[in-house]
């Protein structure tokens, strides 16, 4: 008895002293901030909580910025214009992005979720950090067409923003650092981990898969996980999955590395919420998941950088899938839809 007390006292004292050393009380993120708990079935995040500790005010500021069209040159396009919650923050039905002045981009708006686990961003991996990533759409002439300098000027001219930034960062004026940190509070909070499949893997209630869905899971485990790996369904690598023979419109990873061996390689995308993020692939060429599966079955095109996994031992290209396997796969892919995430009011625009 006594002994336990002393040890308790000691650890208590030590804890107090250690706490006294911390500059701020922000040790554990509040549970009410979306994404502030790491899902048990995900690997360790790339962007840990310690790098930009989630705070309620920071998250809310990031959300306001994400939905604010003033981040674009003419005040018409916000991040949320191209990244819509109901489509897992992709652009529903849009093959390529639509920016200011009706300008078209060249690539499909990807879903934004589980970004905390991503090593690189953009289809070619050109952006290397979740914090600096938003500077790309802001300054892209066919997306938001702005400069960071101008955005910061607009924010500093707004009394409400001034006050909110000061509350979060404790210093003035607002600079690009504060802007990017605040946006990352929101983008890093977009954790999607409550699909029926996630519940199934974590043995939680509601986590049952039908016999057909289980057959689909087995096919993924056999034919897809080499690239769509872990419960994030990506190995974060760049690969050529046979969409083209020469990739004249977009060389993909080679655009960044300037290596011929990277031509036609694109970031392996996650499959979470895949039923809601049509159209598919970097250029949005496929409208349906059926078309995607048909591509893997009989549409894969040969090129020097085609991934070896898509060449069968008998010389056939692609991943053979019969009609039954396709139906099973589709059933499984639908279990990856996370309704809670897609309808989470905390992630929606506040009007």
């Amino acid at each position: 008895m006594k002994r336990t007390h002393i040890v308790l006292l000691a650890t208590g004292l030590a804890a107090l002293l250690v706490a006294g050393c911390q500059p701020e009380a922000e040790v554990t993120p509040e549970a009410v901030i979306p994404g502030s708990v790491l899902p048990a079935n995900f690997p360790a995040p790339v962007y840990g909580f310690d790098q930009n500790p989630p705070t309620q005010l920071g998250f809310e500021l990031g959300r306001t910025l994400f939905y604010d069209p003033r981040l674009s040159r003419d005040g018409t396009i916000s991040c949320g214009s191209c990244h819509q919650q109901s489509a897992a923050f992709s652009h529903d039905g849009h093959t390529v992005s639509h920016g200011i002045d009706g300008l078209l981009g060249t690539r499909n708006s990807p879903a934004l979720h589980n970004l905390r686990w991503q090593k690189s961003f953009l289809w070619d991996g050109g952006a290397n950090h979740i914090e600096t990533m938003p500077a790309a759409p802001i300054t892209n002439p066919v997306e938001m067409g702005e400069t960071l300098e101008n955005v910061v000027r607009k924010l500093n001219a707004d009394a409400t923003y001034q006050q909110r930034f000061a509350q979060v960062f404790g210093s003035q004026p607002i600079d690009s650092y504060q802007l990017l940190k605040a946006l990352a509070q929101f983008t890093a909070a977009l954790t999607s981990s409550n699909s029926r499949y996630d519940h199934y893997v974590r043995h939680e209630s509601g986590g049952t898969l039908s016999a057909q869905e289980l057959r689909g899971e087995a096919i993924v485990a056999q034919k897809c996980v080499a690239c769509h790996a872990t419960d994030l369904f990506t190995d974060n690598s760049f690969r050529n999955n046979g969409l083209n023979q020469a990739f004249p419109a977009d060389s993909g990873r080679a655009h960044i590395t300037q290596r011929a061996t990277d031509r036609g390689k694109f970031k392996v995308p996650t499959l979470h919420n895949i039923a809601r993020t049509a159209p598919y692939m970097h250029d949005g060429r496929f409208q349906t998941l059926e078309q995607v599966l048909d591509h893997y079955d009989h549409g894969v095109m040969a090129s020097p950088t085609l991934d070896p996994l898509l060449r069968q031992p008998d010389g056939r290209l692609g991943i053979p899938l019969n009609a039954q396997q396709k139906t099973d796969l589709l059933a499984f892919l639908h279990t990856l839809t996370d309704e809670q995430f897609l309808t989470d009011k905390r992630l929606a625009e506040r009007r």
Partner: protein
Amino acid sequence: MRISSLFLALAVVAVSLTGCENKNTDPDPVAQVGEMDIELDHVVGTSSLVRDAATPNYTTPSGDQFSVSVFRYYISNIKLKKADGTEYAQPESYYLIDDTKAASKRLALKNIPVGDYTGLTFTIGVDSARNMSGAQQGALAQSDMFWTWDSGYVFMKLEGRSPQANAGGFSYHIGGFKKPNIAMRTVSPALPTGVKILVRPDHTPEVHMKVDVMKLLTGPTTVRFATFATAHMPGAAAVQLANNYAAGMFSIDHIHAN
């Protein structure tokens, strides 16, 4: 039993206490520190740099005429060396120099241990760690000196006009921190013979450094505007220009002991 528990308790408390102390300890109060300034003097050959001339105000040795509209660059990781080989490395040593901002051309170094320094080393550009660490503050705050679609700092920008350039102008955005297109360069311009940088509590030496734009066009690679008017991403062109800025673009002209 009880004694060992007490010991444990005391030990834990002691450990926590020292943990706190470390953070509050001031730098060694006896170590004396001083300051020094580096004044950057932007020139083009033998003339000083005057931007935005209506007609070309400079001519390269190859006969290309040009004027300059933008000149900006990063200097980082400044180090001072003593004769005995020991070095002082300035912490958080990042400067963005912009020819339009006079104040940016004076680098004020503070808290330097007093001593007689015989060498000055710095990097043109930004180390790879800071190119990969997300949002940054101060001189490194993301701006148009940062490539967003292929994350990384632009180490140096030179833009201007030339009748010899096909599009009427040239634009060099030099950067790159990944192999094989690394463009940061560490240089150690020589101090004038027999001169040292004497840092004292009551003396602020002033190092006057010439930054010669012409050297960017005339180093190991001769730049002709007709054939080499742009560099806009990490790559072979940026590396050639980086080799040029490493070859004598920065030189120490004189030092005021003050």
